[in-house]
């Protein structure tokens, strides 16, 4: 499975752990498909950031594609 990177430096930090986010590989899934993608994640607690541009862009496009499969 290929892994796409959507990790971009971000001003968001984890409030609970007080740590900056770092790129990490994450499994995301929709319907019957699972993807490995690289996102910004809190190294302390694993909180995953999905930025707005990703949610309304590429991620939405993939969701629509999978819905029509």
């Amino acid at each position, binding site marked *: 499975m290929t892994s796409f990177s959507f990790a971009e430096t971000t001003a968001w930090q984890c409030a609970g752990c007080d740590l900056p986010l770092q790129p990490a590989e994450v499994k995301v899934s929709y319907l019957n498909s699972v993807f490995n993608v690289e996102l910004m994640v809190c190294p302390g607690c694993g909180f995953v950031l999905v930025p707005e541009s990703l*949610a309304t862009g590429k991620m939405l496009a993939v969701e629509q594609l999978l819905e*029509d*499969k």
Partner: protein
Amino acid sequence: MDQTQLRELESRCIQEEQPFCTAACPIHVDVRAFMAALAKDDVCEARKILDRTMPFPEIVGRLCDAPCRRACKRGEIGDPLAIGRLERFCVSRTGPMLKLPKLPAKGGRVAVLGAGLSGMTAALDLARKGRPTTLIAPDGEIGGRLRLLPESDVPGEALVQARKLLEGYGVAIVTGGPLGGAIGEFAARLAGEYDAVYCDLEDVEMAGIPDPLTLAVGGGNCFAGGGPGADSGFSTIKQVEDGRRAALSIERFLQKVSLTAQRDREGSCATRMATVIDRIPPAAEIRPTDPAGGYTPAEAVAEAGRCIQCECMECVKQCAYLREYKEYPKTLVRKIYNNLAIVQGTRSANKTINACSLCGQCTVICPHDFPVAELCRATRQEMVDTGHMPPSPHDFALEDMRFSLSEACRLSRHQPGHATSRFLFYPGCQLAGSSPELVTRTYEFLAEKLEGGVGLMLGCCGIPAHWAGQHALFTETLDALRAEVVRMGRPTVIAACSSCLAIFGEQAPELSVTSLWELLDGLELPAGQGPRPPAALALHDPCTARHRADLRASVRSLCAKLNLAVVEPGFGGALADCCGYGGLMQFANQPLGEKAAQVKAERSPGDGLAYCAMCRDNLAAAGRPMAHLLDYLFGQTGDPDPLARANPGFSGRHENRARLKERLLARLWQEEPMPRPAHAAMPLAMSPEIAALLDRRLILEEDVRKVIAHAESSGRYLIDPATGHRLASFRPVRVTYWIEYEPADAGYRIHNGYSHRMRLPEETP
């Protein structure tokens, strides 16, 4: 959908029928495309169109007697197109543009006896089909009587070219014929030597009359045609038609298939095409300034420009959906059929199927009642039943419906002080969401005016589930409603929403139902005290009142009694457009839903009046000042101007429905409202822009509160140290919501919101 259903539906759409000219043309030249090319001053393209169907265009294009002209639709509004003259114009300015392919040579030797135009056509067609063909010209020359015509009618060069063309396709042109012997004998001898024979009756005389359909003579391998017709007139295009018909018969004969099956479309034929010419101004024929020289290029462009490009497209002209997807019903049904047939791969028509507003306008317009709405709805149901319905187009609307049906909103009570109900007021989910105050006032009015007890029921008729193809959910919803009406003692349901009325009429005909408008029209009306419109309002019928002329008449009667001046927009009544909510269009294709509302609003220039809450809200959202009829019936002094009321949005509708129940319970039945969840009290602040953004993204304030409540109680959120904004997400069911916010005053200020359906690793549902 099976093949038979597909064919039946396809045949109802006439858009692909031949235009009148092409149907009348014995060889079905695409006159419409020919005219379109000439009107663009593209003579070469026009010539290509002739080359595609017409044998020997340099001859036939000059001599064609154009029987199509009598059929031309333009004739009903001005003069028919000068098709013959335009053909002459075209072929006199162009050489051949297309060389039709020759099929690989096969067996089946054919002799064509007689080289008039019909013999030439038969020989050309058969040679192109790969049959070894011998054209026997009694005196060695082709063309028959064409050779006698003056050079100005057919230049000799045209015959030279024709000969070259025939030879180019491999036709052997030989001299021969009866030298002293009878033609019958000669033909009989040929019939023995060749596999099939065609006699051109212009050049040779023959006993026996050919069968008109097949041109077969005597049941053997002999065919004959051409020459003067029964009326002994000589038609050029008839020569071509016979030659072509005979070639097709001979081809069938050689292939040993039926000579007669399915030949009704050869030669001049009928067409079911319907072209509306109401709005086309008449135009007279352009005559050449120099009749002998024919058209100048400018004259030809002008004359061809008179062609109205006959087609149907009547439904497409009006329907924003069909226009958006560039379909007409015939192409749409094929697309849907193919989409349903896909086993593996992308079902690329899903969105198309889900975007139809199911409003049925096209069916009223269509001369053959093509049922696009039922086609799309039934297809959605089939998709749901087979597990192929994508979740995103309908999720939100179905959740909205579940909310209307939930304890937070649903209600059914007899009138205070009554143990039974003769009537039951059913405002419907959207009116409750849009104008809760008007629901209360209407109910109080009905309860006061009508004898025998007026109960009240809040809920939803289930039409969103019906539209979404969710048959089980729809049935369950409607059954529950039915059972409740029965439990209330079978009162007459007074429905305010024409969608509910349509559902009750179609799916629950056993219920006693009346429309609020018809009922009010029979009562002494309240004198609406609120603000009045400054000018006449455009009265917008909802699409769901399409088949309810009675209801629409009551609405107009009410307006008259209220002294409310209204104007009728183009396309109202049975032809009314949908506002974009119907069929859940606005959820499957948001921009299209907005476009549909725009189209409906623009049917009339002025401010509007609606009597469907969804029309009211969607047209208001499209920027058109829009009131609801109830605003003027039950308005009160001090009410804000109903024309200025904004679209409440999805959050506003939720809140309105819940509050309506709470207030009615408290005010009329002195009952305590159900406690709301703790987070419901969380104060939120946001700019109108952010509120509109969340509404467009289908994020309810309820969801916003859930995200923040979850984040603040768990401490799991991100923070931007520079701004102090927080960012958190929560997935109540199938959608993950992200909210950017900051604590402010006693609550939170919202800065952004977005969502996705894809699941992150830590999310369980």
